């Protein structure tokens, strides 16, 4: 008679088929889907571009900053970029709705610009130091580190040597 209880259980549970494509299906939060990029956290180390096995990520130096590009059609969702990104500026979302018509093949891209900032000492262009990097590098952000943050490497060196750090 065990089959009767199984039958009852199955009846109460309802169909196990997911309602796709008329409704969304549950996706685990940790599912590795479409890559997202946060230009305010990127420090321009280009490690993600270096480790990407699909060659999906490209950086380009522009006069106004560092341009980030990703073509999702060659991303294999391996998660290496996110694993090696120190500041977690690049992450994998659980969005998997990527199927598209052939006409959109080369439009399945994302672009962002990590804009240059000016050094507060000499005014040369430099990549801004992201908040995420400050939190990683210093236990506590002090006025000193806050001051050094806005300096280019040359000015930072002379500021450190001369003791002029307030």
């Amino acid at each position: 008679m065990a089959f009767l209880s199984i039958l009852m259980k199955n009846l109460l549970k309802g169909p196990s088929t997911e309602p796709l494509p008329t409704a969304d299906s549950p996706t685990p939060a940790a599912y590795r889907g479409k890559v997202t990029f946060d230009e305010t956290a990127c420090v321009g180390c280009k490690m993600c571009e270096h480790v990407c096995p699909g060659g999906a990520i490209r950086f380009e130096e522009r006069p106004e900053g560092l341009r980030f590009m990703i073509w999702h059609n060659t991303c294999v969702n391996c998660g290496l970029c996110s694993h090696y990104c120190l500041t977690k500026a690049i992450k994998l979302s659980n969005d998997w709705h990527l199927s598209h018509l052939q006409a959109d093949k080369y439009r399945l891209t994302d672009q962002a610009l990590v804009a240059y900032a000016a050094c507060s000492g000499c005014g040369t262009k430099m990549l801004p130091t992201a908040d995420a990097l400050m939190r990683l590098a210093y236990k506590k952000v002090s006025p000193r580190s806050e001051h050094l943050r806005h300096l280019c490497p040359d000015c930072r060196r002379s500021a450190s040597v001369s003791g002029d750090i307030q």
Partner: protein
Amino acid sequence: MNFLSRMSKKSPWLYRINAGSCNGCDVELATTACIPRYDVERLGCQYCGSPKHADIVLVTGPLTARVKDKVLRVYEEIPDPKVTVAIGVCPISGGVFRESYSIVGPIDRYLPVDVNVPGCPPRPQAIIEGIAKAIEIWAGRI
């Protein structure tokens, strides 16, 4: 429109071509068809064993140099009109095999592709989404 074409609008037959895939995408295609949780046959379609019966072609794999002629020969045997779906990043761009010496793809160099389903492999839900798009195109083509 006669009775047959009205019916075949709603019941296209799927056919699968492996163009040198690592088998990952093929496993997902089998999952999509065989596991009740996904059940692609709800959409009215069904896998068939012969290219001569096919309406929607699902291509997996990056099109290796060795398999290219065979893939193109089988593809030609599929009667027109047909809808071509690229499953996985391999046939779309080459994925991890991009620019390898043994790869002649992406497949849109040789075949007219209609729908792309990226992923490595795409999950069954994504494949169903892609096939639903292909069925729409199929209904417009017949």
